[in-house]
């Protein structure tokens, strides 16, 4: 089972190469390879999830080098949950892209899609901060390609903005990692956790700077308020399946916050005093408010959904910001819910844009679209989920978040903003929905004059758009996402039990740390020179690895220790 951990990273990478090199001119083969790869990744993700679901932390040492010298992948509950979510999301999105023909509107859609999956999976699984940066870049560079897929002036313009913003984010990430390395002398997450815990609180200015820089980086990814400007244009202008896949990208930022600020900079640490309550929580609440106000004000339906993404990230981070097990667990539930909902909404928006022709996604009345009833129904369900109305999972998620805020000094604010923003969201979604789906009937009646009964109206509609009708594959994809939402609602109890365990594991990181640091790596051959190497820093002490077998890494550790003492 051990090598399976790297499969979600390796398999899409190899498939992408095959698709580009071998199947370049065979559209059908590309599609088959792409879907087969994602089905395999889904199966492996389920396997990994099952493996981690009893609380075991599985370690994979790349090249068999022992941590912290080698790069490790770690599959714990949080990582496998996110990996499974990615796999579950990606498959319907890919089916939609194939069914709606989006993958044929430009070059290399499938290869880029696979690289994107590779980057996301790697970011969730890696146990090394610099490797996290590398996987961020992998997923970003693939997302740049996907973002401008099929071209067009507006889309490339939005793509340039998105790229420049993320380029700045990456630079900031490197600054943060440099600061962290200069202070702690390591970039392995488990090792960082140990060293930061031992750091002298009186002399920790550098570590504080690193912590805040990292928080900024993840906040950019998670579209936290002052850093959210990249999101609306890029999500609204990206091709719909890509925007749906991007639903997981904001969660990568949230994942980074959860991972780093439970393990490396735990809330109990004096380094983080005040950062969460005074900064993260108010900003998250503002994000939620602005997002939902954006929903109310949006004039284009893609932009409306993009703003609801900002709102949902605000909701999620408001729950994360408590940094209590209950807060994290409910945030994770909300992350599952909002990822699936956002993806479903973006796909529905694409159907609406296609069907309405000239006005595309503008929120204004026009003639009715073909097959409007089914689309309207799906839109309605997805909006209920997004706005957090009963009976769907959004309501449960919101309830959990409100419950998790009990005891927090900010509780009143959380309740007021969460409930107030929900009201705004409901108004915003109903305005958009009724303008797009109900007003057209009025318009049709006015224009056609003699249309009295619904059956004639039905006939009139068919004339206006003869190409209409619901294609099976896109509807299957959207239906799957909506069905997953309903399943998430029905099985909320078991899901929450798992997520509670996940949160509990996050707040007791010692097994994670000892698994990563104490597992011996490969034995290193000595190069003739026999010597009594005195010690290899704080790492070889577990006894499994004789001191002088870890010759060169030992040197590195000594360097680190020497530097740490400066």
């Amino acid at each position, binding site marked *: 089972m051990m090598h399976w951990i790297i499969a979600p990273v390796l398999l899409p990478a190899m498939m992408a190469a095959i698709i580009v090199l071998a199947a370049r001119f065979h559209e059908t083969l590309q599609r088959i390879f792409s879907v087969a790869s994602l089905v395999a990744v889904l199966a492996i993700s389920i396997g990994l999830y099952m493996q981690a679901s009893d609380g075991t932390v599985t370690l994979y040492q790349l090249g068999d080098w022992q941590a912290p010298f080698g790069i490790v992948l770690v599959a714990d509950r949080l990582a496998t949950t996110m990996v499974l979510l990615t796999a579950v999301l990606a498959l319907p999105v890919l089916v939609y892209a194939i069914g709606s023909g989006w993958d044929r509107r430009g070059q290399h859609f499938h290869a880029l899609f696979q690289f994107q999956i590779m980057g996301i999976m790697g970011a969730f699984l890696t146990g090394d901060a*610099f490797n996290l940066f590398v996987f961020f870049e992998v997923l970003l*560079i693939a997302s*740049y390609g996907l973002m401008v897929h099929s071209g067009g*002036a507006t889309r490339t*313009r939005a793509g*340039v903005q998105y790229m*420049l913003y993320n380029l700045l984010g990456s630079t900031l990430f490197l600054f943060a990692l*440099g600061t962290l390395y200069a202070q702690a002398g390591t970039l392995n997450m488990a090792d960082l956790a140990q060293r930061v815990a031992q750091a002298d609180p009186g002399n920790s200015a550098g570590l504080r700077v690193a912590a805040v820089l990292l928080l900024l980086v993840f906040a950019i990814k998670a579209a936290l308020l002052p850093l959210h400007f990249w999101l609306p244009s890029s999500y609204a202008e990206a091709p719909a399946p890509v925007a749906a896949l991007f639903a997981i990208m904001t969660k990568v930022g949230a994942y980074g916050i959860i991972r780093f600020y439970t393990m490396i900079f735990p809330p109990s640490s004096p380094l983080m005093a005040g950062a969460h309550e005074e900064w993260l929580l108010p900003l998250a609440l503002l994000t939620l408010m602005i997002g939902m106000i954006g929903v109310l004000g949006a004039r284009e339906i893609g932009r409306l959904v993009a703003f609801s993404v900002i709102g949902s990230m605000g909701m999620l981070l408001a729950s994360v910001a408590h940094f209590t097990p209950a807060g994290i667990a409910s945030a994770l539930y909300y992350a599952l819910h909002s990822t699936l909902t956002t993806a479903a909404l973006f796909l529905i928006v694409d159907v609406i844009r296609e069907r309405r022709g000239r006005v595309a996604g503008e929120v204004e009345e026009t003639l009715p679209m073909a097959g409007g009833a089914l689309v309207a129904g799906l839109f309605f369900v997805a909006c209920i989920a997004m706005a957090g109305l009963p009976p769907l999972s959004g309501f449960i998620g919101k309830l959990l978040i409100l419950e998790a805020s009990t005891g927090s000094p900010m509780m009143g604010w959380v309740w007021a903003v969460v409930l107030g923003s929900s009201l705004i969201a409901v108004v915003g979604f109903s305005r958009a929905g009724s303008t797009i789906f109900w007003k057209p009937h009025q318009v049709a009646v006015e224009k056609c004059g003699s249309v009295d009964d619904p059956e004639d109206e039905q006939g009139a509609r068919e004339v206006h758009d003869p190409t209409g009708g619901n294609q099976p594959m896109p509807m299957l994809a959207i239906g799957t996402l909506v069905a997953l939402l309903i399943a998430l609602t029905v099985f909320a109890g078991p899901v929450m039990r798992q997520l509670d365990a996940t949160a509990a594991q996050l707040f007791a990181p010692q097994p994670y740390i000892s698994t990563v640091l104490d597992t011996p790596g490969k034995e290193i051959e000595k190069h003739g020179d026999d010597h009594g190497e005195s010690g290899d820093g704080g790492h070889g002490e577990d006894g499994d690895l004789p001191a002088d077998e870890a010759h060169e890494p030992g040197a*590195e550790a000594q*360097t680190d220790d020497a530097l740490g003492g400066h």
Partner: protein
Amino acid sequence: MEFLIATTIGVLTAAGIYMVMRLRTFPVIIGTSLLTYAVNLFLFASGRLVINEPPILRDDVTSYTDPLPQALVLTAIVISFGMTAVVVMIALASYLNADDDHVDEAQDLSRDRRAGTDPEEDPDTQRGDEKESRA
């Protein structure tokens, strides 16, 4: 030397941030390149500054330089180089598509385009639309 490196990083970062604030893509891309140079130097310095020392500890060597930041910098250089190349290409595509290299105003453009899809409404935006479809 610390002073020299620190000033260099500072000046590069300041110049980079200034350039990033500009409105047109070319200065912004130059700005991001300057920032990546600054961050590469910064990463390099994060292992402390040492001159003329081997990067690996041997038996008879007591002082050495940290090899890890050098590896990190190499990775960062490769990545930032690739990213800059991609952003230049896409910025070029954007400029050729829209005949305009401002980095803002995506929303206004989208409204023009949608209006432009109806040829009878506005001949000016129709021209832009033709250009778009040709590209």
